[in-house]
């Protein structure tokens, strides 16, 4: 390639607010990250921490009323996703970036056959005939390992199981060979064995198709399988980001540490789980300083009024932490 891009996506200082009855409140603030080509970045955090909002903001899929992007830039290839026209963004969606949704039961249109829905995505964006689109859809159905794709082509969504529908959803997302796929908890609604198959499939497809992925999940176990890098989110902020191995080996933010302690381990040692006490602050009562302060086990040594920044760790340039006590 002539112009070797360093980053596929470069997000800086993103801030999205939602309207409540008492005014506008930011759901995510100061979100900055980069994504290299072919890289998988996982956003991890509990419900409501802003991981999906981040993805929806970048995709331009926020509700038209009651939400607004207050600041930031998101350079995708060469253009800013946040300032381009709706028309431009629409062309990028589907062609260059797509999304896999959490709910396989409702993410397909009930009145069309699954095959035609995959073919439609291809026909709409690529310059091909309908017959070619159908062949393309059948190939994709093979690719996502749907058995007897030709027989399934004319099935309606309600004929298929959740796992099969999620495969169809993935096939739709891949129809136009996107560079970037947002996967919004694609395995959460599936049972554990199907989850494992799906993660395996996604990893394999990523290899074959050479695409970047932003993987959103609350399951750290899932992350270890698929991601190259992890960004841990808490209350609308990224609190720590590092390559997967580094993060699991050397978690620095107290929230990450607590998160790792609160998941059960299967490798023998039967330690009791340590829950994180307290609640996430709601978006209209966000503290001015560190947002994790109230729940932090180190709060005796810390101060509540100062807002920590996301800074690189000494000696490990790829590892960023947002904590006053870590240097």
């Amino acid at each position, binding site marked *: 390639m002539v112009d070797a891009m360093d980053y596929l996506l470069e997000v800086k200082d993103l801030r999205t607010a939602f309207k409540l009855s008492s005014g506008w409140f930011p759901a995510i603030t100061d979100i900055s990250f980069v994504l290299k080509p072919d890289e998988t970045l996982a956003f991890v955090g509990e419900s409501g921490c802003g991981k999906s909002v981040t993805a929806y903001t970048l995709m331009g899929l926020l509700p038209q009323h009651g939400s607004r992007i207050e600041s930031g830039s998101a350079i995708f290839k060469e253009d800013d996703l946040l300032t381009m026209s709706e028309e431009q963004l*629409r062309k990028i969606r589907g062609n260059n970036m797509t999304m896999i949704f959490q709910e396989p039961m409702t993410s397909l249109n009930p009145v069309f056959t699954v095959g035609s829905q995959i073919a439609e995505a291809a026909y709409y964006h690529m310059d091909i005939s309908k017959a070619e689109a159908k062949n393309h859809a059948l190939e994709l159905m093979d690719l996502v390992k749907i058995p007897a794709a030709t027989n399934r082509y004319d099935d309606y969504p309600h004929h298929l199981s959740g796992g099969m529908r999620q495969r169809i959803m993935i096939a739709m997302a891949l129809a136009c060979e996107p560079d970037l796929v947002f996967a919004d908890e694609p395995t959460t609604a599936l049972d554990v064995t199907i989850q494992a198959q799906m993660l395996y499939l996604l990893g394999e497809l990523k290899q074959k198709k050479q695409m970047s992925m932003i993987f959103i999940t609350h399951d750290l176990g899932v992350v270890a399988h698929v991601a190259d890098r992890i960004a841990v989110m808490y209350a609308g902020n990224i609190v720590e980001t590092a390559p997967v191995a580094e993060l699991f080996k050397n978690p620095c933010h107290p929230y990450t540490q607590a998160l790792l302690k609160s998941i059960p381990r299967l490798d023998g040692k039967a330690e009791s789980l340590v829950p994180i006490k307290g609640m996430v602050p709601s978006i209209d009562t966000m503290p001015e300083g560190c947002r994790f302060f109230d729940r932090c086990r180190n709060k005796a040594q810390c101060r509540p009024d100062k807002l920590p920044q996301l800074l690189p760790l000494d000696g490990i340039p790829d590892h960023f932490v947002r904590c006053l006590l870590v240097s």
Partner: protein
Amino acid sequence: MKKIDHFRYLAGETLLVFNRNKTSWVGLVLLVIILLVAVLAPVIAPYNPVEQNIIQRLQPPSSQFWLGTDYYGRDVLSRIVWGSRISFVIGVASVGIAMFFGTILGALAGYKGGMFDSFLMGLSDVMMSIPTLLMGLLIVAILGPSQLNLTIALALTMIPRFARIARAPTITAKNQVYVQACRSMGFSDIRILVVHIFPNILGELIVMASMWMATAVRMEAGLSFIGLGVKPPIATLGGMIREGFKDILTAPWASVYPGLAILLIVFAANLLGDGLRDALDPKLRNER
């Protein structure tokens, strides 16, 4: 292009299922018969529907007058045959017009939301707060009484109702993940509305349309009665009920039979509507 293919495909599937559904066939056959009767009225009707025959007035049904005669001695059967022509045309046309514009407005309001939605729904609330008959009366009074203006008036009173009916399922569909998925694949708003949402709300619209047919026929009767629609002595089903009503105890045939005719039209429309709704819903289609 693709849009049309989708509909052709959908139409093929629908016809297939429709074929299997017996009750919807009954509805369709009934409607075709009614349509034929309406079209062939001059041939079928045994007597002139407006010719008065005072000597033969209020005759009970007999071999000479199959359904009896009314207060002025006119043949009830002939008047029903001619009246169904006008009532049927007005009912179908006004509901059709109302469904077309109401659906467009309602679906747009539901999909766009915000100020546009609030304005349109506020307007339709204002229109619906006026009783339908009064509203129809007002519009006919402005446009002047004629069969066409009556149809337009009926359509206008029903447009806000269809807008409401189209809006609610559009909002439901809009918040479904599959619409988000469509947006994530970069489909345009119009494509999402026409290709993806419309087939999902069509079932509800068709059922409502078949029900509003009854109201349209009834309202036509009301407006005709006060002289703002089709003027007597021209026969309409609603007008016949009103005229025959004063003799209902002594000569029930003059008002009961036209009532049965309205019932038949509405019944046929409902059967057809139900059948179409089932045929359009893939979940109710028989397994292959």
